[in-house]
């Protein structure tokens, strides 16, 4: 049970939040090509190291925010509100 640093609630058990995965910028739906769109939908960097990812403070303040997490160690750092 890792601790996720919520910008409002302080460190919280990860079970109180939902991880929505690595941050992937959404292309402009009106102009995006199918291949750009499907890269957004499916392709992920999936690094073994630092990744920027989004969490939703589901049982707490209901804020979406991003943090950096090292997927090799589960160490977390930095945070900002989306």
């Amino acid at each position, binding site marked *: 049970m890792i601790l996720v640093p919520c910008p409002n609630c302080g460190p919280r058990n*990860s079970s109180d939040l939902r991880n929505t995965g690595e941050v992937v910028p959404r292309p402009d739906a009106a102009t995006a090509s199918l291949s750009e769109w499907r890269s957004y939908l499916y392709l992920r*960097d999936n690094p073994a190291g630092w990744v920027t990812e989004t969490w939703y403070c589901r049982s707490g303040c209901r804020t979406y925010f991003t943090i950096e997490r090292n997927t090799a160690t589960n160490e977390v750092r930095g945070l900002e509100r989306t």
Partner: protein
Amino acid sequence: MSRHGYRYSAGKLLKHGVTRGDWPRMWSKPERRDSYDVVIVGGGLHGLATAYYLAKNHGITNVAVVDKGYLGGGGSGRNTAIVRSNYLTPEGVAFYDRSLQLYNTMASDLNLNVMLSRRGHLTLAHTDSALRTMTWRAEVNKLLDIDSSVIDPEEVKRLTPSLDVSSDTRYPILGALYHPPGGIVRHDAVVWGYARAADHLGVHLLQDTEVLDISCSGGDGPDGKGPGGRVTGVRTSRGDISAPVVVNCTAGWASLISNMAGVPLAITTHPLQAAVTEPCKVFLPTVVVSGSLHVYVSQTDRGELVFGASVDPIGTYRVNGTLEFTEELAGHVLELMPGISKMRLMRQWSGLCDMTPDYSPIMGFTAVDGYLVDVGWGTYGFKAGPVAGETMAETIATGRTADLIASFGIERFTEGDLVGEKGAAAVGH
């Protein structure tokens, strides 16, 4: 099977018992060559099976299997060893049925007892919609000649008396998908069987050899990698190897290896956890799976219960395991079998799964010439190992994608033709 192998038999056991003579090595420690026709990255079940079938079915023996650790150290040695073919989609059924056929004859094919135990596989349904999905699977299975049917709670109880089939539980058992040919195999033995057989046919098994980079030329990306390029070899922790064909069989680490060739994947890496109890006298004759409760369980010949669950929700390369996995697991197992509440959990572990958006693998050629993938296995890799090896070998040897894996190509993510296995895959064991 063997060109120069040492055959195992009851007679040899007797002879060694009497003479107390040493057994030969199961596989040799080869001297690494500078170049191979095919380099397979990943010394697990898939990599070893691919090497074996390349040598056996296609006579391609100048092959190296490289692994950063020991053989079978990844998912091959950490899974819960369940085999079955009662999938949802026709393409899935055909593929896994071939795998089950190969498992059936594996002990004699590889001259190693892999302890296939076709003890029957039950997928429990606790809701109307789960029962509907079970019926869907059973009906597809029957049309493809797979022994699979939906049975009622009384029949479930008859097959597995330890299950609580009373109707007043939070998750009543409304029925089950029963698949008599499903069962379990000694997973490590499968790895060793392929390793030993491949070694005997001349394949080089290079352990403790980590791939640091894939060398490419002519591609769109930096260093000649990426679409349009072609593979020239691999750089390893023990030196460079040149090879026109490099195959990625690295499961949880697939993205990292694939990025070395400039081929991004629709994969995220998640741990899949498992646990085992202390032994108790044997009472569980079948493999029991509950999708709604995210649990599967079987009992080993030593009396231990082996449990698995669905993948962890948070992607990570860390395999430390979590407490919440064991808590939820225990709660759910006891819903099914309240009588075992005093059994004790002895060990938990986890392996890395390469999850794809449609719960189906990514197999075959890529946009980089000579770079092939056999990845995206998620939680299904063990069941598929033999057929994946066979079809990847065919694809490499013939230069055209084997029919059985035609729907698993990497291009489906750009063309939007995902495979419909997801419906059945909430827990797929």
